[in-house]
C-alpha cells in the first residue's frame, strides 16, 4: 500500500463520504480502534443530514447540546468507546480449549497404540531379571563413563555413587528370580 496514494480509487471506494481527519494508525485512511493510536484517520459514520446538522450545532456553544446529541456526536465519530474495545474478550478460553483438544489427540494416539500396536504379552527381555542382567552388562561395558550413566556408578563399592529417586536398584545384588 505504500505505492498507492490515499486518494486512489482503491481507498476512495472504502472511505466513501467520510472525512479524513488525521494521520491515524499508519497514514492510511482506515478506521481502527486502538488504545495506542486513539484517533483514527476517518470519522466513523458517513455524514447524513442529521449528522450534518449536529456538526453545525457543534460549532456553537457546546453547553447547548443535549446529552443525547453529545452521545450521537461521539458515536458518529467513533465506533467504540475505550471501555468497549479494551474490554476483555475471553479469547483465552478459546485458545486454552483448542490447546487441550490437541493434547487429547495425543492421548488418543497413546491409547490406540497400547490397544493395537503392543501385544498383550511383552517380550521376554522385559522381565525384571532380564532387565537387571542388561544393567549389569551396561555397567561392565562402562557406557557413558564421563557424564552419563556409568559416571554415577562407583566401581570400588559396586553400587551407585548417589542414589536419587530415579536410580535403579543395585543390579549386582542377587534376587530370587534370577537364573530364569
Amino acid at each position, binding site marked *: 500500500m505504500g505505492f498507492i496514494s490515499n486518494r486512489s480509487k482503491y481507498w476512495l471506494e472504502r472511505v466513501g463520504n467520510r472525512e479524513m*481527519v*488525521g*494521520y491515524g494508525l499508519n497514514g492510511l485512511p482506515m478506521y481502527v480502534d486502538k*488504545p*495506542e*493510536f*486513539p*484517533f483514527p484517520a476517518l470519522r466513523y459514520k458517513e455524514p447524513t443530514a442529521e449528522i450534518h446538522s449536529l*456538526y453545525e450545532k*457543534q*460549532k456553537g*456553544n*457546546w*453547553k*447547548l*447540546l443535549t*446529552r443525547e446529541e*453529545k*452521545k450521537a*456526536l*461521539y458515536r*458518529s*465519530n*467513533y465506533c*467504540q*468507546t*475505550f*471501555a*468497549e474495545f*479494551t*474490554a*476483555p*474478550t*475471553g479469547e*483465552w478460553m478459546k485458545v486454552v480449549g483448542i490447546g487441550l483438544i490437541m493434547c487429547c489427540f495425543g492421548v488418543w494416539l497413546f491409547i490406540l497404540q497400547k490397544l493395537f500396536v503392543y501385544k498383550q504379552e511383552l517380550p521376554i527381555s522385559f522381565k525384571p531379571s532380564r532387565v537387571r542382567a542388561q544393567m549389569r552388562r551396561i555397567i561392565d561395558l562402562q557406557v557413558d563413563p564421563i557424564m552419563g550413566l556409568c559416571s554415577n556408578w562407583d566401581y570400588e563399592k559396586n553400587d551407585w555413587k548417589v542414589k536419587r529417586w530415579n536410580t535403579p536398584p543395585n543390579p549386582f545384588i542377587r534376587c530370587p528370580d534370577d537364573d530364569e
Partner: protein
Amino acid sequence: MFRSTALLRSQTRQQLQDLCPRTAPKPTNNSIQDRNILQPKDIDGWEIRQGVTDLIGHDLVPEPKIIIVILNACRRVNDFALAVRILETMKDKCGSKENEIYPYIIQEIRPTLTQLGINTPEELGFDKPPTGFTICI
C-alpha cells in the same frame, strides 16, 4: 578545515543520539509543557490528533495544564467528540494507578470542562463495557 569537520561530526553524533530511542533525552514535563503551550492559535484537527498521539507515546500522564491547552484547541476546531476521546485517552494512560491519578486530573480541569461545556466520558455513560454478556478476564 579539520576543526570544522570535527565539529560537524560531533553535531551529527548528537543528532543521532537524540533520535535513537535508547539514548534520546527523556521528555520532562517542562519540555512537553513548553512545546504544547507554544502551540499556534490556528492549529487544526489533524495537528491536534498527531500531537496528542505523540504525547501519549511517552511514558507519562500529561499534566492538567497540557490537557487544558489541548481541550481549548479542540474547542477552536469545533470537535466535541475529539475532546471526549482525549479524556478517555488520559484515563487509559493512567494505567493501573487510575484511581489515584484520573480523579485528580478531572478535578484540576473541571473549570475548563464547565467553561467549554465538555462532559467527561463517565457523565456520558461511556465508561461501561459493552452491554450484554460480560466476561471478567
